[in-house]
């Protein structure tokens, strides 16, 4: 699906734009080490990671299908993500509270994902990815099916994260991510992935 692709990303927000099935999600999974490339390599900090699990500690991934733990509360989902990333108990608590608050989930902290709306679940998935303080944040269709309000909340959060020095890569075909320039999103790169990846603007 993904062929002859080469890119370098150094901080900021990168949008992977294209229609469904053109390989955006595959690229994100390759970056995260969730898929093995049949050829070529993925380098982080100029090196191919030898231990993928260590590399994954510094990557936050928001799946298209969210993949929140269904039997755990939102707070537990966040705490588990932060704990597995090796944060101290204090950091775990602080970060959990911080992102629950910033993403407007504080009143749903003790609810399970199934009890939340789609937008709330989406925000919870992003909070779970952010709470571990990753260096790279990968998001697969983070705003699909969301209303403008939820989309703005998410964009604002991502912009804030990128401003603080994080690298954000978003695979999307949502045109709102382009049109909402005033939300301080830095679209600093557009990746032409093969022939499929075309900007909606084009």
């Amino acid at each position: 699906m993904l062929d002859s692709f080469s890119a370098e990303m150094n901080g900021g927000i990168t949008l992977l734009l294209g229609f469904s099935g053109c390989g955006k999600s595959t690229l994100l999974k390759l970056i995260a080490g969730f898929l093995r490339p049949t050829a070529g390599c993925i380098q982080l900090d100029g090196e191919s990671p030898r231990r993928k699990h260590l590399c994954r500690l510094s990557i936050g991934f928001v799946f298209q299908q969210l993949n929140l733990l269904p039997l755990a509360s939102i707070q537990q989902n966040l705490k588990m993500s932060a704990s597995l990333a090796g944060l101290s108990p204090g950091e775990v608590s602080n970060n959990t509270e911080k992102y629950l608050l910033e993403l407007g989930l504080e009143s749903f902290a003790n609810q399970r994902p199934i009890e939340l709306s789609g937008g709330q679940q989406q925000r919870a998935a992003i909070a779970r990815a952010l709470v571990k303080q990753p260096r790279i944040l990968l998001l697969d269709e983070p705003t699909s099916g969301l209303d403008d309000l939820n989309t703005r909340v998410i964009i604002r959060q991502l912009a804030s994260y990128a401003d603080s020095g994080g690298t954000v890569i978003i695979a999307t075909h949502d045109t709102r991510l382009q049109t909402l320039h005033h939300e301080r999103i830095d679209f600093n790169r557009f990746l032409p992935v093969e022939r499929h990846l075309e900007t909606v603007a084009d």
Partner: protein
Amino acid sequence: MACFLFALGLSLDLYFAGSQKTVAQQIEAAGLGRVVVTNFSYGSRMPGKATALSPLLDKLADNGYYAYLRRLSQQAQVELLGDAHVLMYRDQDLIDLREFFPGFEGAGALLLTARREFPHGTRLNAKLGSLEWGARVIQTSQTALEALGRKQVLLLPAEWPLPQGDGSYIEVILFESSARDSASIRAQIGKIRQLLTLDEISTANLQSSLPLLNRLEAMQQQQARWSTTVRSIVAILIILVFASSAFLEYRENAYLSALLQSMGVPRIFLLLRYLVEHALLLIFAFSLCCGALTYLLTEPVALPSMLTNDLIGLFSPLQAFYSWLWVLTISLALSLLPILAGLRKEIGRILQ
């Protein structure tokens, strides 16, 4: 569904067991090896004289014991009881008659009855034509009387003079086979039939427990068919349920492992976690099995002692320990195969 079928199977088993018990009780009451041969005759009423069934009597002696009686066509009138069949017995059959009729004792005129209002040994007057006797009551069961007629029976010694009547009578042979299994009894009944055919005694009638035995066997076969069918369906359902739950668990494990790996949990850690979990589960299951086995071996009700001794003698404790250790290790390894398969799968192919 499995529970429903299990309950259905159990109900069928109970139904068949109940029905079979009823038939078995009927067989027991009638006597498993009891055969009654009756034959209508005409001529001398003296039992000592040659009869149509004489050749049969000679052959029966080798296979059990029997009593030979003759039932008259006339009926006696018994005081307070009314009609009674009149049967003549030979002195030589007195001992065997005691076997057929519990409580039978003495000689002379005897009245066999199942009615309880006349105590054992009571004397009642019985009349047959112009003749009259004082008959001693012998209480017996209704089942025992069935072979001779449904009502009370007046037994008279063969030597006693009787009214001439029309000269007709019914020969009755009560035969109790010494065989105790249905196959031998079936063979003996077949032999009796064959003898009757060979002697051309077409008027003879044969009563035995054979129809009941056939019914019991038919019920057992029917039960076996039903049981096999229901158990097969239950087994298939259990296999389906377990297979689908195992598949779902495999998928769930694979999903959870992939999710945890995506958060940075090393694969080896997950494998160790499953290893510990499965080992604990296996040890728990193994302990339960050991408990059940110990119960079976130590409870004399559960298994015959000969069998338990054989089982105990099979292994020394150390051999048993090593054998079970192997079983546990192999089970553990097998249980980890789907986990390994799940862990080998790329995360990106599981999580979307």
